[in-house]
């Protein structure tokens, strides 16, 4: 290769490097204006997934958070402890359900956009990359729904789980229900991941305390999309209950196989119909869900004594009328993740109102001052010393289909 070509290559490399610097600069430009530069707006940085495996859950959560921000701004902003009202601004980026991209973007929100409040994307997989970065930069991470028990350690002072219980606590009500009903021949199938594995551990250990050993306790890969054989094998052992712990696609595939088998098992439990009923209704029809047990979440549970933010009825009507202005343009009935996103906003709002200043350590200290004292439409907000959510308990319940209408019966907890 001759000299001239070499020069060309070096020129291209140089141009490329310049493009790189310019490109990096543009990222922050693309995602909104720099938060720290304007003094009278509080920036809330978050990620969402418009595509990929978490999009179904991430988008409604993001819509809920945006809804909260619009509400607050319509009222003139958040009242800080110094009496001043400041508006909030959401700075968001799309991670496409990709953990690698999410790592880059969390870093971007912290180092480039210098957001005042950092909020995670849905679920543990997309939350995990943010945990060490936030800790390193001493930024409080408002973790919406990343319930992985590894996140919460005594050494990490910079995480708050806002809208769901830590996953070790989830299955408590389920286990108690099984014990109370004296259910025999329990079969558990769980997907191989953090979220479902922890719940399986909880159920099994709680049952063990009551002297019950599940007849079957089997894990399947999270990617499993066909449960026909597994359901068939369980059916042959005459189960009293089938507990399937998975993500939403697992639950759909499992219920499909269960329906098709034609066998009636007294208790059939899956997690997500209680959170995303619209999806399951479109797949199985309202009558098809009758009898299925799940963890009912708002809007199926209507939390009483709400002392902070809207109650369920108010939220439902306000959210419905704001739909067209929200990301992803949600349609149909509201679901739990809309509530979860809104609830995260409420926790942030109360944090900002109670904090002495906007410094991260003051924000974190503020959360402790109201932990256990506020009840939102998502339940009583209470965190432990590690930032994990211990309030907002999830009961169990089952669907009932009567006179052409699907409803939920919440079992006493």
């Amino acid at each position, binding site marked *: 290769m001759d000299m001239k070509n070499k020069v060309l290559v070096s020129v291209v490399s140089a141009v490329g490097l310049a493009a790189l610097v310019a490109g990096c600069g543009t990222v922050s430009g693309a995602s909104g204006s720099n938060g720290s530069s304007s003094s009278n707006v509080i920036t809330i940085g978050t990620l969402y997934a418009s595509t990929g*495996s978490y999009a179904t859950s991430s988008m409604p959560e993001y819509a809920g958070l945006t809804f909260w921000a619009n509400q607050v701004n319509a009222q003139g902003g958040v009242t800080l402890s110094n009496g001043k009202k400041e508006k909030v601004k959401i700075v968001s980026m799309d991670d496409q359900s990709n953990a690698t991209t999410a790592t880059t973007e969390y870093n971007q929100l912290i180092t480039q956009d210098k957001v005042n409040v950092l909020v995670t994307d849905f679920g543990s997989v997309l939350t995990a990359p943010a945990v060490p970065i936030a800790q390193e930069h001493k930024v409080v991470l408002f973790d919406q729904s990343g319930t992985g028990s590894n996140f919460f350690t005594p050494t990490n002072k910079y995480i708050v789980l806002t809208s769901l219980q830590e996953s070790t606590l989830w299955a408590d009500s389920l286990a108690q229900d099984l014990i109370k009903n004296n259910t025999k021949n329990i079969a558990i199938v769980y997907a191989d991941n953090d979220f479902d594995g922890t719940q399986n551990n909880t159920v099994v250990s709680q049952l063990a305390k009551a002297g019950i050993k599940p007849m079957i306790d089997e894990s399947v890969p999270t990617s499993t999309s066909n449960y026909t054989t597994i359901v068939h094998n369980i059916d042959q052992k005459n189960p009293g209950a089938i507990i399937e712990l998975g993500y939403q696609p697992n639950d759909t595939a499992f219920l499909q196989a269960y329906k098709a088998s034609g066998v009636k098992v007294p208790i059939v439990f899956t997690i997500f119909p209680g959170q995303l009923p619209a999806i399951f209704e479109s797949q199985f029809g309202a009558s098809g869900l009758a009898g299925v047990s799940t963890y009912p979440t708002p809007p199926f549970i209507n939390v009483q004594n709400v002392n902070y933010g809207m109650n369920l009825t108010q939220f439902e009507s306000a959210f419905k009328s704001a739909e067209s202005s929200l990301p992803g343009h949600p349609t149909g009935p509201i679901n739990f993740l809309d509530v979860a996103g809104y609830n995260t906003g409420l926790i942030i709002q109360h944090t900002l109102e109670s904090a002495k200043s906007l410094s991260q350590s003051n924000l974190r200290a503020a959360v402790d001052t109201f932990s256990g004292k506020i009840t939102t439409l998502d339940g009583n907000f209470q965190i432990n010393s590690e930032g994990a959510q211990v309030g907002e308990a999830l009961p169990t319940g089952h669907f009932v289909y009567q006179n052409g209408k699907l409803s939920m019966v919440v079992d006493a907890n």
Partner: protein
Amino acid sequence: MIGLFYALVGLGLNLIFGVMKVVNLAHGDFLMLGAFGAYVSYQLWHINPIVSVLIEFVVFALLGMLIYFGFVPRLVQSKDPEMLSLILFFGVSQVIEALATMAFGVNPVSFNVNMFGPSLELFHQAYPSYLFVPFVVSLVLLALMFFFIYKTKPGTAIRAIMGSRDEAAANGISIHRYSSLAFGIGIGLAAVAGVFAPFVVGGVDPTTGTDLTTISFAIIVIGSLGNPIGTIFGGLVYGISMMLMQTYLPSWASIAPYVLLILILLIRPSGILGRGVRHA
């Protein structure tokens, strides 16, 4: 029983590879499009998926022929068509996935499993209708395909091209006409198999295509690349091994097809029913 469906999944891919030595990495995406096609026509016009099978076969076969004339002649002339087609169709698959996401969103779709009526009782065993219908349709289509390939004139021409391109050309067979026909049929078969994917595989969303492609490859490699009968065999082996794994070792079931694929590649690179002609 599900094995025959998997045979249908692999057959289109194998036909295309056999005739053109083109690796259609977008195969699964055509399956996915087929599934969405059936879903949308059912939702909008209440067209029964069985009817969609016929419509989609024609539509996608025509689409396939268009794609053929757009890409393949140029590819086949290049130095390494097999490798280039692999990369090219990876690009095509990305395009399809992106367009499908824009058009259909990200939520998985699936049909109501009871739409074909209740289970059928045969020989004292209940067969759920949502599996029985794909089985029957697969059987009919596979039979038709074999009739076409082995008993008709165009089928004979296609087999001649599979055997040797140059000899076929020397005997006056129009390579492009029959190759494009085979390509169209291959894509059409993919779409038709896709119609039933929501029943057999579970929910289908725009990203499902990639997984379906890998499964299809496992099936046709197990059978033998470029051999249609091998594909049926591959589909059966895949279906049965999947069932056995889910029964005895469910947590390892998802890697079973890949292990099987690798083992067969290493032991008999030409597939179980392959003729063993391969260069080092």
